[in-house]
């Protein structure tokens, strides 16, 4: 009797959406037919989504990849593995695939490798080290470490995390909260989803360290309802974290307490904005609150609350385990550490690429992403979600870091890069930016609520060549009004995609736009 064949197959949403569950059942059926003894571990995704479903077969401690696997491949694939001959879908050792090999994975180091809901595997693969270190430090020392690391918020605004930690730590209150912002509404982003599906204990660990540091005993994960797989995994992971003593009334035997609850939203992009999120978590309409007071001072139920994006919190365990200095060594200038860039849209090699800040945009789009999936030239990318700028290839030399992007009218945001080929119509994209704002505005400020609807109309007129010059002027005024008169970045930043489209792609807004000479 030989040893069982160890197979690994992702349970990540992308893999499932490309047929991973069907492949898993086919594997069981075909293995049974062949009287092959197999164990299938469902993991997170490695982030090479064009290869999903990516099956991995372990041999002498090395994991060999096959992908993308179709259910029709499964029988022959098992035969090839059993006979030790090469199958056409073979990719070789997974960690040597160039897309994977050249990354610096400190957040996603276990994602795609371990069973996401096994605390044993989490702990035996380096998980928990940051928390154990934090439990031997004072709250102030932990905050100091986070500040020294230079890590900035990955939810969009890029505010230094350590400053926020200190504010919450120094505000006196009978109750404080940690809130993980898992609303991830930006198109082109899925890093939060992937880490929650692939290594949920990392988020739990990051939140727990934050709780110990600032003196909060309760944490919430605010998850968008569009992520059913993540919801299932998180619920299971929270249960198991309690059973394993990672959270609860006596964390790892330290005597410290921290509780975590999962809350699922109800379909509202604006609830990613932190004050809207807090209203929603209180069971209300997600209307944005005026700041100040900052949530760090008066947040959930009026108590000091540390709100962070999932990826920010998932960066913390490594910072504690390895020290702020080692984190600072990664990245450039004030953009320290790593960023999981998400390459999406019309792109050949779509997926997640974690790397230290400093790569030029071109490397991510052309070399790593492989250019447009259609094989046509890339004409534009939108970076940083629906409120982010459209940039042309002439700016692809720009380095992807906070300062460089800001200096060029763009932003890193949550790290999403959406690729468009030459078919894109930037007027249509600018129109959509207004349409999305109109759809998702919380309704509190007139420039956002009404201005966005007006923006759609203006775009239609420009497209239809009605009083073009006049409407372009109206567009300018409208954008200015939205920037000046909006309470939050929804209204305040919708002009960014619009104006960047107009600035870098004026031909799409011109008379006879889109008409080639042949017509």
């Amino acid at each position, binding site marked *: 009797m030989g040893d069982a064949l160890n197979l690994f197959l992702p349970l990540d*949403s*992308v893999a*499932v*959406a*490309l047929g991973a569950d069907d492949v898993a059942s086919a594997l069981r059926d075909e293995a049974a037919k062949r009287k092959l003894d197999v164990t299938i571990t469902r993991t997170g995704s490695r982030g090479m*989504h*064009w290869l*999903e479903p990516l099956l991995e077969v372990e041999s002498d401690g090395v994991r060999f990849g096959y992908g993308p696997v179709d259910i029709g491949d499964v029988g022959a694939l098992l035969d090839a593995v059993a006979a030790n001959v090469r199958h056409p879908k073979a990719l070789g050792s997974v960690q040597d695939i160039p897309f994977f090999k050249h990354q610096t994975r400190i957040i996603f180091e276990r994602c795609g490798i371990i069973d996401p809901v096994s605390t044993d595997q989490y702990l035996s693969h380096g998980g928990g080290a940051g928390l154990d270190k934090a439990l031997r430090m004072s709250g102030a020392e932990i905050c100091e470490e986070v500040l020294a690391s230079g890590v900035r918020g990955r939810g969009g605004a890029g505010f230094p995390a350590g400053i926020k930690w200190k504010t919450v730590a120094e505000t006196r209150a009978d109750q404080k909260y940690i809130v993980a912002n898992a609303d*991830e*509404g*930006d*198109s*082109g*982003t*899925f890093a939060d*989803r992937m880490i929650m599906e692939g290594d949920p204990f990392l988020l739990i660990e990051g939140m727990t360290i934050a709780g110990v540091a600032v003196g909060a005993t309760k944490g*919430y994960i605010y998850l968008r*309802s*569009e*992520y*059913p*797989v993540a919801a299932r995994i998180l619920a299971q992971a929270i249960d198991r974290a309690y059973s394993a003593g990672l959270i609860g009334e006596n964390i790892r035997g330290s005597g410290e307490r921290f509780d975590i609850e999962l*809350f*699922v*939203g*109800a*379909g*509202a*992009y604006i609830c990613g904005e932190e004050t809207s999120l807090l209203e*929603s*978590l*209180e*069971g*209300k*309409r*997600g*209307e944005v609150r005026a700041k100040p007071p900052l949530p760090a001072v008066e947040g959930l139920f009026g108590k000091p609350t540390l709100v962070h994006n999932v990826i920010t919190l998932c960066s913390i365990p490594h910072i504690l385990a390895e020290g702020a200095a080692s984190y600072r060594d990664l990245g450039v200038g004030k953009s320290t550490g790593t960023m999981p860039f*998400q*390459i*999406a*849209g*019309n*792109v050949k090699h*779509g*997926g*997640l690429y974690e790397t230290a800040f400093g790569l030029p945009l071109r490397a991510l789009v052309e070399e790593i992403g492989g250019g447009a*999936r259609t094989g046509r030239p890339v004409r534009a990318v*939108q970076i940083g979600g*629906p409120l982010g700028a459209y940039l042309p290839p002439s700016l692809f030399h720009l380095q992807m870091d906070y300062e460089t992007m800001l200096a060029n009218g763009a932003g890193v945001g949550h790290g*999403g890069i*959406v*690729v*468009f*080929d030459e078919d894109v119509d930037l007027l249509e*994209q600018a129109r*959509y930016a207004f349409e*999305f704002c109109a*759809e*998702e505005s*919380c309704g509190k400020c007139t420039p956002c609520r009404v201005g966005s609807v007006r923006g759609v109309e203006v775009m239609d007129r420009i497209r239809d060549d009605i009083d073009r010059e006049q409407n372009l002027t109206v567009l300018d005024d409208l954008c200015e009004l939205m920037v000046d008169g909006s309470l939050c970045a929804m209204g305040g930043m919708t002009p960014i995609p619009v104006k960047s489209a107009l600035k870098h792609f004026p031909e799409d807004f011109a008379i006879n736009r889109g008409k080639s000479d042949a017509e």
Partner: protein
Amino acid sequence: MPPGDQEIRSIIEPYLNKTGGLITALRAVQEAIGHLPEETDAIAADIFNLSRAEVMGVISFYADFHRAPKGRTVIRLCAAEACQAAGGRGLQEQVEGRLALKMGETAPSGNITLETVYCLGLCSAAPAAMVGERLLARADVERVADALNDADGNAARG
């Protein structure tokens, strides 16, 4: 038979002392009944000690909540940027054509509702769709139709 007030009340009550309980309670009612009947407002208002207007305000704010029953299978097509870049607009037109339904509509038979979703986090393998509970990446009209058939089969088998 329409759900009784007592049934709605018993679904909502356990959420009274939960954080954000009203939203979770409304979802539970909707999952049990398929939509949020008008009676829900007064019952939820009573339990949570809110005005009916406040409950209605919450229901109208969130896209997930709906007053009218939906089709037996809901097809959600992603309309956000990454999916636009990868042929999402074309997919939408094809699905609309195939089903003879526009976005936001429910088929007269009550079998299908077609609606828009803004990002399913599958943007690296766009365009994305969700047919019932089933996620689809790199979706095309054939795969949407197949998934719909499967969902119909499952529903018919109960």
